[in-house]
């Protein structure tokens, strides 16, 4: 199926480069659907997410968030600057993570400046639920200032 519509994807000219890039990446053997990394900065666990968060990959993010909370990390920042796709399953995982850290008086903030990702948060009203920041440093600084 990967080779089903090669002409169609190559017709994009001067359009949305990010989308075309995504299609090209999917067509390659080394396509990585979701990449997760995390590190601690100023006592806050920063989760860097890259790729697509959908019904197929979201369980991996859910497992990581659960592992972090079970490991005693209750201050989380999820960096979504390299997220290329997010659907309602991914939203559900983020809300689930938020509920888990809140149960320990913790926090889960997001870093996101991509309009197409932010739009999904607006449609679902979740911009009122999450702290959404322009960068990891801003998210950490905002969290520190609230302590």
């Amino acid at each position: 199926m990967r080779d089903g519509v090669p002409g169609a994807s190559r017709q994009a000219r001067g359009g949305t480069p990010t989308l075309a890039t995504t299609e090209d990446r999917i067509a390659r053997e080394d396509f990585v659907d979701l990449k997760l990394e995390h590190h601690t900065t100023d006592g806050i666990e920063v989760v860097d997410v890259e790729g697509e968060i959908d019904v197929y990959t979201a369980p991996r993010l859910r497992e990581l968030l659960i592992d972090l909370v079970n490991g005693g990390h209750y201050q989380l920042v999820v960096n979504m600057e390299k997220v290329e796709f997010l659907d309602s399953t991914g939203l559900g995982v983020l809300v689930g993570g938020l509920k888990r850290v809140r149960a320990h008086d913790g926090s889960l903030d997001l870093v996101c400046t991509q309009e197409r990702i932010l739009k999904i948060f607006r449609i679902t009203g979740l911009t009122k639920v999450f702290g959404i920041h322009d960068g990891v440093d801003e998210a950490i600084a905002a969290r520190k200032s609230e302590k």
Partner: protein
Amino acid sequence: MPTVEMTFTPLPAHVRTARLVATAVARRSGVPEALLDEVRLAVGEACSRAVEVHQEHCPAEPVRVALTGAGERFEVVVTNTAVGDDGMAWPPQPAADGQDPAALPAELGLAVIAGLADDVQVSRNGDGLSIRMSWPSGTRAG
């Protein structure tokens, strides 16, 4: 007749493939570039929902997707054959006042679709449910 028609086994891994094909056909049909992300997301939501209900009610049956781009609008119909899918959450209801905003609606996917496609119809189709969505397109399709 749809421009492209596909069926896939109800597994999450195939939803991305469906998104990819739908986006490619939408582009070829002349859907403006600015709307392609909406097509991709809405089709993904509809397919994710279909996979979910199929896995619950009829895991051996395929999910069907029909993409039609020959007219003035690019139309996508995602059909499931799950008898137990009552589709009662359509149209999505806004959260009630005082409700925990983090309490997600049961049909968040439908809420996203409603926010993305300017024309959405949910109807019973035989045993299952069809979600029909459309966007403006050009006349390049064939």
